[in-house]
């Protein structure tokens, strides 16, 4: 009898431990592919409310944009993917994403036009960022007011520039073309001749934001071509560094949502995107994530302090130069070869 009692106890205990497992397994799993750094924000502000509302369990897949895109395309198992516009354009060109019916997004009309369908019907953007010039304002008497200032003689060995294969690399070539009075797409010879003139001013080409921060904080460089998501770390390392006000404007960078063709929960993915572009989610992201998270929803209202490091408001959005990734990807191989001729020898 005591034997059967202990068996009963053991059974009850096992059932107690197994119950949550079974109930968790019964829930649908929704996979979000995202950079790791922003998941801390997403967890309380977007994931938890979404899980409760739709009775799903969100699982994240983290990593850099190219590797996540590759995994989602080849292996599948991702329901919604967050990418920079460069890599979402690569995915679109590879036929990796579904088109999205915008009429199913209740918050779609609240978005700035630039964010609605930046790459066709493949999904809205969810943040605005910018690519421009940062510099140590104590190291030059004449402020930087134009992209063409990068070619100034007094900036010899002073500039940290992104490598060609980064998001910002090819944009510098576009500006070189403009500064030489031509269009880099039409006349790459002139643009790259101008890039060659820039070479003496380049101390290092970098591949990541942390590398740029290091170069600027150690004084190896005092001018950097940067995306705004890296700016707080740069300024923390060297408070003298500020953002240059450029007459041509910064480049507009966007992060986008896309639904892979092989996604399991496409309707749920639409609901997730809709939730993430809502006024409240966008406001929370702008306040919590700060730099690089300019809201795409035009109904978001921020205090001047909250907006100080963001692309915020219609004027800021319209003053930036668009980044034509479809055109850039078309010329990628030719420009890469030319770039290597200039900087890789």
């Amino acid at each position: 009898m005591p034997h059967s009692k202990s068996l009963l106890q053991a059974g009850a205990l096992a059932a107690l431990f197994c119950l949550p497992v079974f109930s968790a397994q019964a829930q649908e799993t929704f996979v979000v592919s995202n950079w790791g750094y922003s998941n801390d924000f997403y967890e309380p502000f977007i994931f938890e409310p979404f899980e409760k509302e739709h009775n799903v369990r969100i699982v994240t897949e983290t990593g850099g944009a190219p590797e996540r895109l590759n995994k989602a395309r080849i292996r599948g198992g991702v329901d919604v993917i967050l990418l920079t516009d460069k890599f979402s354009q690569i995915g679109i060109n590879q036929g990796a994403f579904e088109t999205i019916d915008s009429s199913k997004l209740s918050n779609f009309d609240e978005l700035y036009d630039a964010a609605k369908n930046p790459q066709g019907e493949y999904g809205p953007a969810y943040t605005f960022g910018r690519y421009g010039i940062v510099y140590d304002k104590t190291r030059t008497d004449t402020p930087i007011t134009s992209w063409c200032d990068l070619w100034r003689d007094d900036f010899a060995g002073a500039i940290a520039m992104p490598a060609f294969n980064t998001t910002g690399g090819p944009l510098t070539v576009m500006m070189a073309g403009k500064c030489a009075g031509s269009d880099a797409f039409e006349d790459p010879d002139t643009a790259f001749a101008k890039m060659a003139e820039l070479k003496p001013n380049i101390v290092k080409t970098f591949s990541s934001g942390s590398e740029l921060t290091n170069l600027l904080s150690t004084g190896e460089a005092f001018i950097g071509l940067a995306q705004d998501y890296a700016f707080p770390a740069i300024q923390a390392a060297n408070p003298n560094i500020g953002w240059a006000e450029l007459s041509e404007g910064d480049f507009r960078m966007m992060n986008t949502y896309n639904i892979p063709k092989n996604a399991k929960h496409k309707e749920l993915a639409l609901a997730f995107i809709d939730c993430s572009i809502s006024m409240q989610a966008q406001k929370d992201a702008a306040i919590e994530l700060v730099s690089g998270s300019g809201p795409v929803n035009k109904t978001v209202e921020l205090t001047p302090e909250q907006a100080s490091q963001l692309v915020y408001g219609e004027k800021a959005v319209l003053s930036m130069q668009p980044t034509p990734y479809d055109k850039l990807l078309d010329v990628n191989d030719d420009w890469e070869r030319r770039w290597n001729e200039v900087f890789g020898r």
Partner: protein
Amino acid sequence: MSSRVSIVQRLSALGPWLLVLPATAVLLFILIIPVAGTLAESFSNPAGLFANYRDFFADSYNRTVMVRSFRIAFLSTLTALILGFGGAYMIANSSQGLKRVLLILSVFPLLTSVVVRSFSFMAILGRNGVVNTALMKLGIISEPLEMLFTQGAVIAGLAYLFTPLMILSLVGVLENIEDDLYLAAGSLGAAPVAVFFQVTLPLAVPGMIVGSVLVFTGSLATFVTPTLLGGEPQMTLATLLYQKAMISIDWGVANTIAAIMMGTAIFCVVVLGTIAGRISARRAVH
């Protein structure tokens, strides 16, 4: 009954093979299949079996990167060999207690991440780094020297990274040289320099070869140090491979580079292994 005995006998004869079967299966899945896949992919261009290789070698930039990679790997190996030999010689000839301390100190950097060790070199060679600051304070230079982001910086960084491996390879070999040989050489009138070149150095060759293979293949394969200390003008095969695979998503070129690097590493191991074998055989005959 006899058939049962024969099955047991057969199984026991297979015993060693059955024991290594799990490890072989694991190796097959995690090492051989991916490597074979990479090799197969490098030949799977619709334009032809060797189209990827033809395209790769047709680009003069790729050839430049390849030659540069081998030059950097060779010079790093040479530097690590010189520094490592000195270190290992000192360790091998120390007292037992000091030997332990020196060995721990020389292996200690291996416990730190490659990224941290490469960044530390930036702090040493940088414009405001330790070397420039010291030289300027001593009045030897008035302007900081441009040491960072040069080929010299990459070689120095790689040598620093891999010298512990060279030391480990050499210490055991140097320790095993019997003292009688030194005594015999000395009693025959050999000066210390002659003893070093005619006794120590020839007997240390197997260790030097093992260490050189480790440092050369390691220097060829690492991409963090060339990226941080060299940048784009010092692009190496490993850096190019990383860029093609992880940024450009150009798997054709990435697989080709991987296959070339693998082939080079195997070639080095085979050639240097053969040399080491011949030296050992010659010594055995003598």
